[in-house]
């Protein structure tokens, strides 16, 4: 697998969520995603960036354009050093929220992309990696 391009956005303020969305949109266009796929990826990025900001108390988003064989994809990695998630299965289930939200963010983001990976350790932080192929 080849990484064609990498961009990193720090998530420290609420405005940074907008920057993550804009960068995601830009790279999705570069990958040649359809309008629907662009919107899906941007929406998933928005959910996860907000999680990083709200629950992870800030972190980074790494955006990569990758190539695997003949296909091109966009991979986003969200990392934080926040409190971590104790029960990932519960966090992934629809309707469960630790805040005031709808409780659809993680599960929704997973349904919007092709590949979804989450790693978390209590007290150390959380990493979420999502990939969508063209």
């Amino acid at each position, binding site marked *: 697998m080849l990484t064609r391009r990498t961009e990193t956005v720090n998530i420290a303020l609420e405005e940074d969520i907008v920057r993550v*969305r804009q960068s995601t949109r830009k790279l999705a266009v570069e990958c040649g995603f359809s309008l629907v796929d662009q919107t899906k990826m941007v929406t998933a990025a928005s959910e996860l960036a907000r999680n990083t900001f709200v629950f992870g108390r800030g972190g980074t988003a790494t955006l990569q354009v990758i190539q695997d064989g003949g296909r091109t994809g966009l991979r986003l990695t969200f990392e934080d050093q926040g409190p971590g998630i104790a029960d990932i299965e519960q966090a992934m289930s629809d309707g469960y929220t630790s805040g005031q939200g709808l409780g659809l963010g993680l599960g929704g983001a997973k349904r919007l992309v092709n590949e979804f990976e989450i790693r978390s350790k209590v007290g150390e932080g959380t990493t979420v990696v999502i990939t969508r192929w063209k």
Partner: protein
Amino acid sequence: MADKDKGKLEEILRKYESELLEQWMKEQPAAGTLRRDLLSEDDLRRQSSEFVHLFRQALAGGDLVDITAENWQPLREILASISRSRAQQGVSPSETAQFVLSFKHPLFDRLRKEHGKDAEGLAEDVWVTTVLLDKLGLYTMEMFQQSREQIIAGQQAELLELSTPVVQLWPGILCIPLIGTLDSERTQVVMENLLQKISETGSQIAIIDISGVPAVDTLVAQHLLKTVAAARLMGADCLVSGISPQIAQTVVHLGVKLSDVTTKASLASALDLALRTLGLEVRNRQK
């Protein structure tokens, strides 16, 4: 510094004012202060000649250390106005400071010729002028920064004003076109504006048009649901219009239930529905 030295500096500048200007003008393009795309040569010449002239006057005025002193006032004003105009034109800060700093070369050249073998006198004059020009350069930077901040503050104010007008489409029908990013702060403003207007006009129907919202994530959806619920408490029905195909698909995948809300693909169909709800119809006038 002794008074005679002060006099000498000023004398050199007075005597060679036009020559200094000519040489400075010749060197400025190389120093990178003349952005031909943004600045005409005439403007640069006018600014440069004003600078040299006022610099000489300030030297004559006495204080050669503190550029905030009275005698530097006219020069500070002209530098502030130059910085402002350059900030607006989009010249970079270093190019703006370079304008002042690039005067050093022609000036030092001239000082060297005048002082001849008097190394001590030359060193002293060079030191005095270099400190002064550095201070003036920093002052330009400060002014430049200030103007930039003013420009940004102005744009922010404009943006806030742009956002979220509530318009009446028909007696009893309100519309709020949402554009751009819906963060918590803006949504709060939107919701307040809308509810306020509902109570002022006694409208029965409010259309929230999200054609201009690029992506609907769970937070935006939640804000929409809350606004609709609040409007309903006030006795108004909310329609959400402008759901594009890509937003429709995304919302379905996200798993957000917007089924309690009446949604339409376009503002036109939402208006049509609203008119019918009010018992009105739009017809072709009979020929």
